[in-house]
């Protein structure tokens, strides 16, 4: 039993390490090769945990091999478009110029229900509003709406507004994120000044966001007496 427990701990660390090596892309949208590696890793990791007669190296070696190969293949696909298409496939246009392409849908084995589900997930409920729709290599559907169905932009309504970076988290559960403060061009003095103005101690702040203009949003720690 103890062996199984220790093996589970070690393989947990190996799988976490492997997923970290694969990078952030792995955690989000899965390319076909990444999906294959993820399924294989999860299966391989369970074998040496369940069966103590199998040496742990029989789990660790294939996991590291698969993950490292996947990283190498993704590095190669970055250099070569042809290999990228071979490994990940290519996006397919299913609606072009407002016209649906049923033959492409058949080719992709996408049913009409799949298409509508994909459109709804993009906030589109009327297919007539779609100018172009593309099935990405991850299987997601990207949609470009017709101009008549698109919400007006600031440019469309002639409003002059500057592009500003979004607010960032500067205090997390009473801890100051100094790097984020420096990115905004502020320091702890500025933060303490704001907290004094609000009449709050740092440890009473649950979260605080701020932007470059000095605008901020504060959320207090929940009161324990409540």
């Amino acid at each position, binding site marked *: 039993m103890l062996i199984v427990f220790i093996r589970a701990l070690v393989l947990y660390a190996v799988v976490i390490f492997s997923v970290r*090596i694969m990078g952030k892309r792995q955690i989000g949208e899965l390319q076909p090769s990444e999906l294959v590696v993820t399924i294989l890793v999860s299966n391989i990791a369970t074998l040496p945990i369940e069966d103590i*007669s199998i040496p742990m*190296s029989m789990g660790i*070696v294939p996991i*590291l*091999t698969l993950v*490292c190969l996947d*990283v*190498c293949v993704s*590095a190669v696909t970055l250099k070569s478009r042809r290999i990228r298409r071979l490994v990940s496939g290519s996006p397919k246009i299913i609606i072009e110029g407002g016209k649906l392409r049923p033959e492409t849908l058949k080719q992709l084995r996408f049913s009409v229900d799949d298409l509508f589900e994909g459109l709804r997930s993009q906030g589109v409920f009327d297919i007539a509003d779609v100018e172009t729709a593309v099935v990405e290599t991850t299987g997601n559907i990207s949609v470009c709406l017709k101009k008549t169905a698109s919400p007006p932009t600031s440019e469309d309504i002639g409003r002059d507004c500057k592009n500003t970076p979004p607010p960032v988290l500067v205090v997390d559960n009473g801890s100051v994120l100094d790097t984020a403060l420096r990115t905004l061009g502020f320091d702890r003095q500025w933060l303490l000044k704001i907290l004094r103005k609000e009449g709050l101690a740092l440890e009473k702040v649950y979260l605080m966001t701020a932007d470059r203009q000095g605008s901020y949003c504060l959320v207090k720690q929940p009161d324990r007496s409540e």
Partner: protein
Amino acid sequence: MKRLGFCIFILMALVAVSYFSLRRVSAGGEELSQGVDDIRREYSVTGKIPTKRIDDLSLKWQDYYKSISFAENTNELNEISLLFTSLRFAEDGQDLIKECELIKTSLFLLCENEYPHWYSLL
């Protein structure tokens, strides 16, 4: 790029570890097979069961077991351990020769299964 370099390093390290484990398994296997041959030779010359040699070989097997258990299925290794125990309690020459042959064949298969032959890859 750093990640790619790290992965290439890990792959190379895995190849190196696999190669050295293969060398370790086959070198130890050959040594033990040689020991089994020596036992048989001594028996054919003296006509007596060489208990001392068998005990020494069993100790060698125990060390070998520990050193290769990180790479081999322990069920297979345990089966060979049982054969070594049977060898220690062999009652007559026929029994001894039978156990020696079984151990040699098991060691041969253990080493041979480590080599990437076509039939083991497919």
